[in-house]
């Protein structure tokens, strides 16, 4: 290819990066984290009909609780994890108790407010969360970091993996654990969804008054649904914390929630299979557009970063126009549900 020809082509993608193992592992890690969070949103929005825009808040509560319990309280990582799950579920229930009595759209607003309160709290409670500096290792003991225990596990997993793959990627064990979690969560949720419990959730989605008239304590079921989303959010938060190795309030901006929602609508509502296909597709597009090469100027790095989101947004709009039920959603359920 002559250099002149290269200058004439305004847009170029380097496809070599797509064959890179590290690229796929990082897509897989992000997709897995968002799949876990979106599974929770699926329980809420897809199956209970409560629009929860607070996913980032649950992730933050989970991640920060874990880090604070390890670094400030001095508990072991393995004790902190279940405690942080409990804290997040409890938090979900406390948030839900007043707000789930609101109409669907007001509930959605209340959940955004909740998530933002959590983030702003993390930003300002410097003594506890490190504020914008973030939280990583204990102040008095820089060798005590929240991710230490995970690193040990990660190293021993890679120790085994080395038998098959000479130089395993550092993130490979995280990828394995994340997708194992996705798998277990999906199986559990499908079981729940097919149970009488899941039937009540769907009835609430269709018509809450009808469910109440038939003897169902709908508030209790909605609280349980929210607590499940909180639990899955906490898992998402843990994995995000381990992937980043340091926690900042900026990691829990509302954008995170909307990414998770994009994954949800891409895959389709009321369907668990769609969640992970949606997650992989979404993060593939986000990460692959990283490799768009355009002449600079006028395409500076920040402009290209904005362009990546614009392209992702266009793809989502296109999907909504041509396949509003998402990839795996049922068109009939969507139409009848209205």
């Amino acid at each position, binding site marked *: 290819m002559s250099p002149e020809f290269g200058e004439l082509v305004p847009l170029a993608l380097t496809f070599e990066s797509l064959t890179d193992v590290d690229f796929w592992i990082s897509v897989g890690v992000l997709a897995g984290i968002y799949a876990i969070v979106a599974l929770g949103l699926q329980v809420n929005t897809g199956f209970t009909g409560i629009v929860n825009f607070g996913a980032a808040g649950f992730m933050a509560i989970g991640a920060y609780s874990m880090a604070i319990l390890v670094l400030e309280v001095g508990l072991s990582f393995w004790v902190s994890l279940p405690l942080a799950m409990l804290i997040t579920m409890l938090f979900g229930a406390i948030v839900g108790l007043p707000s789930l009595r609101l109409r669907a759209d007001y509930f959605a607003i209340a959940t955004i407010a909740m998530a933002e309160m959590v983030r702003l709290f993390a930003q300002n409670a410097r003594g506890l969360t490190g504020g914008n500096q973030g939280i990583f290792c204990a102040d008095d003991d820089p060798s005590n970091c929240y991710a230490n225990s995970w690193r040990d596990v990660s190293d021993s997993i890679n120790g085994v993996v080395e038998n098959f793959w000479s130089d395993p990627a550092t993130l490979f064990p995280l990828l394995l654990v994340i997708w194992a979690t996705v798998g277990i969560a999906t199986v559990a949720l499908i079981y729940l969804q097919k149970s*009488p419990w899941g039937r009540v959730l*769907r*009835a609430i989605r*269709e*018509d809450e008054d009808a469910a*109440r*008239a038939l*003897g169902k304590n709908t508030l209790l079921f909605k609280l349980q649904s929210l607590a499940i989303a909180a639990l899955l959010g906490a898992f998402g938060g843990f994995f995000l914390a381990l992937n980043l190795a340091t926690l900042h309030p900026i990691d829990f901006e509302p954008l995170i929630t909307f990414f998770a929602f994009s994954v949800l609508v891409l895959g389709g509502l009321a369907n668990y299979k769609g969640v992970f296909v949606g997650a992989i597709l979404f993060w593939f597009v986000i990460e692959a557009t990283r490799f768009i090469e355009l002449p600079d100027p006028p395409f500076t790095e920040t402009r290209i970063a904005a362009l990546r989101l614009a392209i992702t947004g266009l793809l989502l709009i296109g999907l909504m126009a041509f396949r509003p039920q998402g990839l795996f959603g049922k068109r009939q359920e969507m139409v*009848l549900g209205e």
Partner: protein
Amino acid sequence: MASERTGKEADSSQQTSRNGAVLQIEELFKHFGGIRAVNGATFRVAPKTITALIGPNGAGKTTLFNVVTGFYRGDRGSVAFDGDQVFGQPPYELARRGMVRTFQITKALAAMPVIDNMMLAAPEQPGERFRNLLLRPGAVRAREREVRQQAMELLEVFNLTELADDYAGTLSGGQRKLLELARALMAEPKLLLLDEPMAGINPTLGARLLDHMERLRRERGVTFLFIEHDMEVVMNHSDRVVVMAEGRVIAEGEPHEVRNDRRVIDAYLGETVIDTVHGERLSQ
């Protein structure tokens, strides 16, 4: 009559209140701002009767239903069901006690199959609790089988068997009314409150619905309280009629007594008593 019945149905009909009424409403009030929708309504419903609740538009019939079934919080008054004071209890609690209602606009759970609509309504399902799903999966499965069988039997009665796996949203208006009644029966009611069960369905289906009501009363001892505007239906198919106007009960009695009551005729002023009136003001 009691000898015909067995099991649950028999004991449900025995549990009527001390004074013999399934439902006793006294001095019930509910206002919205300055409008007194229910303004001291008082009446009782005797067991195993079909009682019609009539009245001109805006008389407060649907509001009364909503207060009695716990969907609205009443201002004050007394609602005794089966001898227990239930005023102010939440809808799900009342439904569990056996007071089940339907709505003026049918609430078929559209994006759920007909069979799921039915199975949902069954009481005492262990599978609605996490603990049981985890620890007693056998009990959950056993109850599911039982509930499914019961649901299929009822669908058979209502000629909905072939539609069992269809989404409820694909049913016709009349079929939805039948489904709603069948579903309410799955909840094992002692008292069924039906808000305009005949509205918007064709006369043939309406007649079938009435037959069902009469048979359920006869065979299962279910008590009915229904709001209705079609006077022909009210006169021919109810044992007692309660007439409301402006939030109060103005007359009560057997159909022929009510028909000739001066106050009732006055309340309907401008409307012929033998007439079908659709749609309601103020009632939602």
